[in-house]
């Protein structure tokens, strides 16, 4: 955009994204190089506003980063006490043995948004400059090297013209830029293309997690209880399941993950998570409670096979943007933090040693760390589910992880991208979802209401169809608008099926990134809206 009128500021390091990976990187950098100037941008209105996670977390990375986190009052207050793994049929359930990687002794149930707010306070104490409410919207490149990012302009009207309140974006220039945007980062996507970072690795595969935060009657609250389910309501070819964690003051985190390699275009992840609440295994926890918040976020499920090249001239990819999530554990916080810390170590060294263009030692550090070892052991589980279905996958994983301890001499691959596997509407069986009752189950719009999402209305739409014409011929004619079902925020709508036209209610977007991933021809492009827009998840999410 208006490159000329922009102000610029120089830093040693700029971090894009204030999740666990970005914050851990910033903290580690200031620990190693207190003199370095470190600036962190976060698109949410405050740190934590866009963080959505389970979350049961391992403390391994935190122990290394801030060994005295307990004394410093880190909000890890609910130790895990009981693990349950259930396989569901429509009315029944059986307990499965908890797979070893899912044992949670020593772990904590947290609100990851709250943990991030606390990490941000630690970072600021060390002198990190944190600017929430500003999205990095543009890469700055000079002579083949990334030299920072620019924030978007504020006050551009829907027509693309500057309004009366127009404030140009700002250039944040740095020797090194760390991209910590989380799953499916919008700038990371550009970087992968620009520098060919995905060459020679499997495509990334994703899941969509939809979450509700509940407050339940005290008598029924069992802090520390962890329950996961597989099976119903998904068919046996679709990867996914629910989680349910009791934590904090009578809070329950309930949610559902669906692998975005699902094939049935009629599937609606939102409605799956709603109808699952009618199952006694879930219902008995939530009944009589009150739903406090709602949100959704995609997660990277490709594991090691899908991790791209991590460095490029001028910067690094860290956290879930790089795909460091341990899928069988459904944990990515400790790995995200560890990757951030290793990146900080690589960058601190590079700052000292003449600032070479590419801080290459990061990849080496990652390969030598427990992070690599852990992801290596877990690498075959997710692809096994894609190949052998829910139970087959479960049995395969037991063999791979228990008998072979992750040392199987083979590696299963992800043959397809998620968007390519969708079956046309006439080849798939429509799914009839029950109506919400307004007490336990809800409709989309009243759910989105609880995400507190908002976007300044008068701004260019941040969800673009690259080729608008293709919507009718592909999305409608072949797939009957899958986006109106997978989008968990009701952004996509076809008001009149007799005269099909796509309406995009961009203000409702909760930044989960699913449309950017799952559109059958990758025709939808998610770009960062005006800073501060998007959900405002309260502490608890």
């Amino acid at each position, binding site marked *: 955009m208006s490159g000329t009128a922009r*102000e610029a*500021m120089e830093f040693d390091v700029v971090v894009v994204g204030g999740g666990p990976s970005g914050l851990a990187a910033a903290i580690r950098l200031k620990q190693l190089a207190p003199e370095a100037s470190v600036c962190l941008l976060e698109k949410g*209105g*405050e740190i934590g*506003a866009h963080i959505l996670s389970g979350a049961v977390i391992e403390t391994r990375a935190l122990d290394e980063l801030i060994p005295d986190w307990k004394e410093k009052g880190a909000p890890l207050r609910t130790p895990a006490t009981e693990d349950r793994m259930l396989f569901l049929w429509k009315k029944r359930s059986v307990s499965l043995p908890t797979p070893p990687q899912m044992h949670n002794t020593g772990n904590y149930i947290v*609100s990851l*948004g*709250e943990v991030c*707010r606390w990490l941000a306070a630690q970072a600021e104490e060390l002198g990190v*400059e944190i*600017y929430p409410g*500003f999205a990095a919207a543009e890469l700055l490149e000079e002579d083949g090297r990334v030299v920072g990012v620019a*924030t978007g302009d*504020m*006050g551009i009207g829907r027509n693309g013209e500057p309004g*009366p*309140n127009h*404030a*140009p*974006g*700002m250039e944040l220039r740095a020797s090194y830029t760390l991209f910590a945007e989380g799953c499916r980062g919008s700038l990371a996507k550009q970087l992968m293309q620009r520098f060919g970072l995905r060459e020679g690795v499997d495509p990334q595969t994703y899941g969509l997690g939809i979450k509700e935060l509940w*407050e339940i009657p005290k008598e029924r609250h069992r802090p520390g209880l962890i329950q996961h389910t597989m099976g119903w309501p998904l068919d046996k070819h679709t990867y996914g399941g629910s989680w349910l964690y009791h934590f904090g003051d*009578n809070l329950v985190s309930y949610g559902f993950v669906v692998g975005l390699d699902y094939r049935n275009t009629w599937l609606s992840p939102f409605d799956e998570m709603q109808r699952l609440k009618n199952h006694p295994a879930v219902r008995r926890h939530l009944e009589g409670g009150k739903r*406090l918040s709602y949100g959704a976020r995609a997660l990277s499920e490709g594991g090691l096979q899908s991790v791209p090249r991590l460095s490029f001239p001028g910067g690094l990819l860290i956290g879930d943007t790089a795909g460091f999530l341990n899928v069988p554990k459904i944990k990515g916080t400790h790995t995200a933090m560890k990757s951030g810390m290793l990146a900080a170590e690589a960058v601190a060294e590079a700052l000292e040693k003449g600032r070479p263009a590419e801080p290459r030692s990061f990849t080496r550090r990652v390969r030598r760390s427990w992070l690599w070892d852990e992801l290596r052991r877990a690498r075959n589980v997710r692809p096994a589910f894609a190949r052998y279905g829910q139970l087959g996958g479960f049995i395969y994983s037991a063999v791979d992880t228990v008998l072979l301890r992750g040392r199987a001499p083979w590696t299963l691959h992800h043959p397809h991208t998620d968007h390519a596997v969708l079956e046309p509407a006439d080849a798939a069986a429509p799914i009839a979802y029950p109506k919400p009752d307004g007490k336990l189950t809800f409709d989309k719009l009243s759910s989105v*209401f*609880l995400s*507190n*999402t*908002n976007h300044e209305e008068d701004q260019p739409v941040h969800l673009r169809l690259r080729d608008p014409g293709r919507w009718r011929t592909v999305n409608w004619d072949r797939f009957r608008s899958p986006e109106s079902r997978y989008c968990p925020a009701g952004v996509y709508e076809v008001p009149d099926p007799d005269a099909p036209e796509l309406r995009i209610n961009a203000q409702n977007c909760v930044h989960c990134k699913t449309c950017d991933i799952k559109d059958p021809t990758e025709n939808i492009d998610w770009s960062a809206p005006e800073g501060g827009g998007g959900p*405002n998840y*309260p*502490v*608890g999410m």
Partner: protein
Amino acid sequence: MKLLVPVKRVIDYNVKPRVKADNSGVETAGVKMSMNPFDEIAVEEAVRLKEKGVATEIVVVSVGAAQAADTLRTAMAMGADRAILVQAEEAPEPLAVAKILRALVEREQPRLVLMGKQAIDDDMNATGQMLAGLLGWGQGTFASKIEAGGDALSVTREVDGGLETISLVLPAIVTVDLRLNEPRYASLPNIMKARKKPLETIAAAGLGVDVAPRLQTLRVVEPPERKAGIRVGSVAELVNKLRDEARVI
């Protein structure tokens, strides 16, 4: 002329407030907080008065917890020159805030205090009027237009059924309404610069003001949910009901 602009840190207007389970109040812990939108309008107006050369200095004040410093920084990023944080434990009531502001007015000697007409948390709509009463100054509330000229200020007010214009002798208090202006963004460069602007912190106790609450909150509840009424069969029936039963037409 020097301007004093009080600003309050409140739950962000995008966030749906949630009543605490024990009915003691509304949950504010861990909820996104921002500057009261009416106060943003007051800051904007102050900055415009400065840009026009009418105002010479803008001092922003907030009474509240330490985190209110963030709100003051935002005001300085919008263009205020310096800030005073009066640190107080619990959010003091409008009467106490007005007394604290009186003490600051005596110290800072502004010619005009510009403030929001109400805070969107307690919706009291009282502090400006009370400060005017305590100081014996004139007040122009619910302003939708302000014009400065010499020793007087012309204020157009939003009143029931229209607008009213008054002329105020300075010094005076003006409280602002929604339509006065559209506040600017605090841009990133300005936020960075605002980190270097002076922010003074004083303890409420140090001002010798009695801030003891006069109101005791017995309970806070959610409003009763609206229930479905009746279905009518025809337009005539509807009009009859509206006329004779509901008496709204």
